[in-house]
């Protein structure tokens, strides 16, 4: 049951071979057993989950169920969920119980009737690539407990990899769905900017933030995305487009598909065994009928510096809301309003979040705005134009998700810039606002352990169904995505 697809779980619930209460209890038992070590969930509320499961069973009995009614999922702790503690990985929100639901939570839990198993650990305010900036402690990678699961959606990734949830939500501002999916052997998709509502998703960098599914297969991701996506008037950048069935093209053959390989992705920086796995995936796609062409993204190397101007600038503005007055941590000691702000923020935020707020404040400050912020936004357009030129020559772009497999806990924590560079292949996609996904494509050996390698697929705007099709056809031909860590 723990390896079942969403389609299989949906059928089992529909045929009454299992109830949602039984299925939810099965996962709660696994969480109770595995989570004390893995630390993938920061909040579990069994009574609340079981009550939702009971309601789902009643809805199925009443005959008005959605395909996913009663299917459990893990929610990244960045989504406000009414009645649930919502921390965003920060001390700032340690006691914050959300008074309202994020649009994603409404869509999945209220409209579709899915059952939340709990809130997953994450880098503080989604700022990190290893889950080590969480106030609630690091998450272990189920494939090697001494290694990181990636970030920022590391808790969601570890939860699904260890089968403590059949699927999870994540968010991706610079790679936070794709990189942990790669490091934990999952399939994860960051949709086109604007496809999934940001309402109630705690903001990091609003022009880049986008939520998406993280699961065991492209098919599962397609089903969850269909339930998550859609226009929301409460998000000012939500796109008013017709509702899509993202699973509609899964079975299309790939004959004639043009896959572009950006030469900059394959130039250097990728570890040899990661490159080997990616090359093998390219060979598999040739067998499936795809044509391989070389493309170029000449400004790709500028994506990391441009991102580390734009994202901190937006973060410094977004996180100004945490003032110790309306919600969140308030310092015990202060003398006036300014020291209340300063002390509350100094105590409530961790080191990485403070660094990014300070960088953002600096690049937006008088005299530096043009040199940094405006220049970064211009470079952002150059990067988007590179992709537009590449998509004139191919249907999808393929490359690695991450330059290496999961790194050791602590290995990059002391040097922020080293950590930032682990997102070298994912960040440009957010800057351009394109959809991108990661899927398992093999393993590399490190210290006697098998560690997953992720393959990245990037599509043109609104090509999610096509990307999922390209991933699904590969997953029909290979079994990398079906492999799970030992000892669980």
């Amino acid at each position: 049951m723990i390896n079942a697809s969403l389609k299989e779980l949906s059928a089992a619930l529909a045929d009454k071979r299992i109830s949602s209460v039984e299925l939810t209890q099965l996962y709660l038992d696994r969480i109770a057993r595995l989570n004390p070590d893995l630390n993938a969930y920061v909040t579990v509320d069994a009574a609340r989950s079981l009550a939702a499961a009971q309601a789902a069973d009643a809805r199925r009995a009443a005959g008005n169920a959605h395909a996913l009614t009663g299917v459990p999922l893990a929610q990244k702790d960045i989504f406000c969920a009414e009645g649930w503690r919502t921390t965003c990985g920060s001390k700032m929100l340690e006691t914050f119980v959300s008074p309202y639901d994020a649009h994603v939570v409404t869509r999945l839990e209220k409209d579709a009737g899915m059952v939340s198993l709990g809130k997953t650990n994450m880098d503080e305010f989604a700022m990190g690539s290893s889950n080590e900036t969480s106030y609630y402690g690091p998450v272990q990678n189920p494939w090697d407990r001494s290694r990181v699961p990636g970030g920022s959606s590391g808790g969601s990734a570890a939860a699904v990899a260890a089968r403590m949830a059949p699927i999870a939500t994540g968010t991706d501002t610079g790679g936070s769905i794709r990189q942990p999916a790669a490091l934990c052997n999952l399939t994860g998709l960051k949709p086109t900017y604007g496809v999934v509502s940001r309402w109630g998703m705690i903001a990091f960098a609003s022009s880049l933030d986008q939520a998406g599914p993280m699961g065991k297969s492209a098919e599962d991701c397609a089903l969850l995305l269909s339930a998550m996506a859609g226009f929301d008037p409460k998000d000012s950048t939500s796109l008013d487009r017709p509702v899509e069935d993202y699973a509609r093209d899964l079975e299309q053959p790939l004959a004639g598909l043009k896959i572009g390989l950006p030469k900059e992705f394959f130039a250097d920086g990728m570890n040899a065994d990661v490159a080997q796995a990616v090359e093998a995936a390219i060979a598999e796609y040739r067998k499936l009928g795809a044509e391989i062409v070389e493309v170029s993204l000449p400004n790709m190397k500028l994506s990391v510096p441009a991102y580390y101007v734009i994202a901190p600038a937006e973060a410094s503005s977004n996180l100004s809301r945490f003032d110790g007055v309306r919600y969140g941590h308030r310092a015990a000691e202060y003398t006036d309003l300014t020291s209340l702000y300063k002390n509350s923020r100094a105590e409530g935020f961790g080191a990485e979040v403070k660094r990014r707020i300070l960088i953002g404040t600096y690049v937006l400050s008088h005299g530096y705005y043009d040199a940094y912020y405006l220049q970064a936004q211009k470079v952002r357009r150059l990067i988007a134009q590179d992709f537009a030129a590449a998509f004139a020559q191919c249907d999808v772009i393929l490359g690695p998700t991450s330059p290496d497999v999961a790194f050791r806990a602590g290995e990059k924590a002391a040097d922020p810039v080293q950590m930032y560079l682990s997102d070298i292949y994912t960040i440009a996609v957010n800057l351009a606002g394109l959809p991108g996904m990661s899927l398992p494509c093999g393993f590399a050996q490190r210290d006697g352990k098998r560690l997953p390698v992720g393959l990245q697929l990037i599509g043109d705007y609104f090509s999610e169904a096509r990307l999922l099709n390209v991933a699904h056809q590969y997953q029909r031909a290979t079994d990398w995505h079906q492999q799970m860590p030992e000892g669980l």
Partner: protein
Amino acid sequence: MSLTLDQVARIAHLARIEVTPAESEAVRDKLNGILAMIDELQSVDTTNVAPMAHAQDLAQRLRDDAVTETDRRAAYQAVAPETEAGLYLVPKVIE
């Protein structure tokens, strides 16, 4: 571009984050490491390139100026550190 300790103090004040003298050197060094990485942008020729604020380059949507929310003051203030009579409490700002 490299920050001095005075600049770090100034930025920290603008950001309303207390940075103690004991922390400030380590904070400055980390910030300077990030700024050195960002400086690569300065060498790019962006003459005649329009800045891109958003992926879709869309205009902001307008909506009717109508009341759509119900009064949930009690629920929203239940998560505040300190309230009284429906008001948020802060230290005295006007003598």
